[in-house]
């Protein structure tokens, strides 16, 4: 056997490829992304087609909670500041105890009053929704629950089971029942067309795909897939919004005989902080301007057709009080929040 006197020089590029790593990455990335997009599109179309066949009853059961008179979010929204623990009677001097208890009593009284106001407002909202439901030809098996949120930012959204959420900020931002009814009718139309369950089905399917693809394989991949998915798929899309706007306008026409005042809230939003600008690409809603235009176009069209009394309906008394109260506490800065659901 001949002994090697030197280590041989082994040619490069056998054990490790000399191809640029970016080339492989780009190829993989594009391929995987394309097939995933295809899969997601297919599945979300299927979900959208099939979700309306899920009985509304199931949706309601999903959002009902045993042992609670109302859903847990009621608690979240209403309790802001619990009264501080009362001073123990015997320890402090009699005078100060009396003073403390009167302030505590006063605090409790105002809280109770506020609570009653909210209850009244919620009842009024519920009544408005119920009467709108008739005009909007809502199927009889559907029912709505309106919840008033403490949030000063004007917003409204609808979720599974016919739950509609309205913030106090929204009440403060409208001046007539017509404007409020437009927003409510829009959210009711979402429920009518089963948009929440469609969005949820799509979201659930997407989550499933992510879990399957990711399957314990890198958080990174999971994260990015999830995020791009969330960007486009978890909320209602623009077509859904347009459909709901159209249905809301039809419902309002049926209910009031005209559409005057319906665009007030959208105009207000537009006036306060304009359109989304570059964010428009990521927004799920049509541009606010577009929505205002659509409503005003409808109003014009109807004005030429028929002459009816186009009176604005004032807000219900139960709402007016709370509106006046919440207007005090609302400053402009709350209007500039990014997230909008209505």
């Amino acid at each position, binding site marked *: 056997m001949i002994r090697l006197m*030197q280590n041989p020089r082994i040619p490069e590029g056998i054990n490790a490829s000399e191809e640029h790593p970016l080339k492989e990455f780009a190829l*993989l990335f594009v*391929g995987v992304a394309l097939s995933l997009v295809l899969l997601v599109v297919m599945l979300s179309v299927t979900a959208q087609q099939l979700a309306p066949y899920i009985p509304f009853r199931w949706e309601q059961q999903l959002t009902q909670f045993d042992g609670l008179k109302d859903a847990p979010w009621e608690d979240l929204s209403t309790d802001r500041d619990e009264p501080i623990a009362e001073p123990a009677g015997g320890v402090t001097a009699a005078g100060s105890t009396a003073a403390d208890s009167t302030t505590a009593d006063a605090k409790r009284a105002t809280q109770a009053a506020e609570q009653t106001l909210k209850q009244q407002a919620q009842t009024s909202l519920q009544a408005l929704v119920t009467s709108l439901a008739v005009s909007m030809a809502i199927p009889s098996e559907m029912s709505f629950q309106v919840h008033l949120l403490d949030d000063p930012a004007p917003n409204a959204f609808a979720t599974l089971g016919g739950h509609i959420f309205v913030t106090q900020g929204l009440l403060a931002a409208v001046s007539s029942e017509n404007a409020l009814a437009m927003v409510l009718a829009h959210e009711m139309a979402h429920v009518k067309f089963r948009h929440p369950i469609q969005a949820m089905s799509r979201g659930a399917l997407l989550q499933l795909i992510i879990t399957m693809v990711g399957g*314990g*394989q890198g958080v*990174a991949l999971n994260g990015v897939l999830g995020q791009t998915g969330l960007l486009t798929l978890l909320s209602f899309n623009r077509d859904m919004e347009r459909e709901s706007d159209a249905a809301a306008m039809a419902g309002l026409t049926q209910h009031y005989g005209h559409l005057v005042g319906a665009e007030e809230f959208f105009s207000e939003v537009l006036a306060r902080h304009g359109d989304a600008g570059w964010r428009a690409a990521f927004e799920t809603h049509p541009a606010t301007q577009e929505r205002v235009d659509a409503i005003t176009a409808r109003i014009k069209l109807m004005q030429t057709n028929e002459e009816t009394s186009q009176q604005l309906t004032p807000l219900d008394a139960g709402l007016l009080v709370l509106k006046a109260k919440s207007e005090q506490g609302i400053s402009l800065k709350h209007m500039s929040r*990014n997230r909008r659901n209505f």
Partner: protein
Amino acid sequence: MEALIQLGIFTFLLLAGFVFGRRAEKKHYRSIFEREDRFRHIVVTNEKVPSPEFIQHDFTMVAGNVVISVDYFKVVSAGLRSLVGGRISAYESLLDRARREALLRMQEQAHARGAQTVINTKFETSRVSGNAGQGIGSMEVLAYGTALIPSRA
């Protein structure tokens, strides 16, 4: 917005992984080539029995050990690859570097002992931080063999 921030963080990590990982790899390969030339006279083989001419030599075990970390870009690249199958070239170059580096360190040790030949060379590979869940992993390569040293007697 949150999604955009997440995406931004991901892209940044990916880019940082690529830039620094690539630079480290190039630098490492340059050093490997240079040292391989320097230690070419220390012959490394895997024969188990020394040739008769070494019968009078002293012998000792020499070992070279290296731990190399994966970068973020390689992790993502390999993650994508694992969806479709095929050779993960991102990890191949990593392993190649680790094995050669381990050999070089072993040769260095043999050189320090005055040896000219290492026989019965073997490799061990294991994953470090394997239990760190889904964190970025690193790998260890150990090369060991028997160095044959000309006896001074």
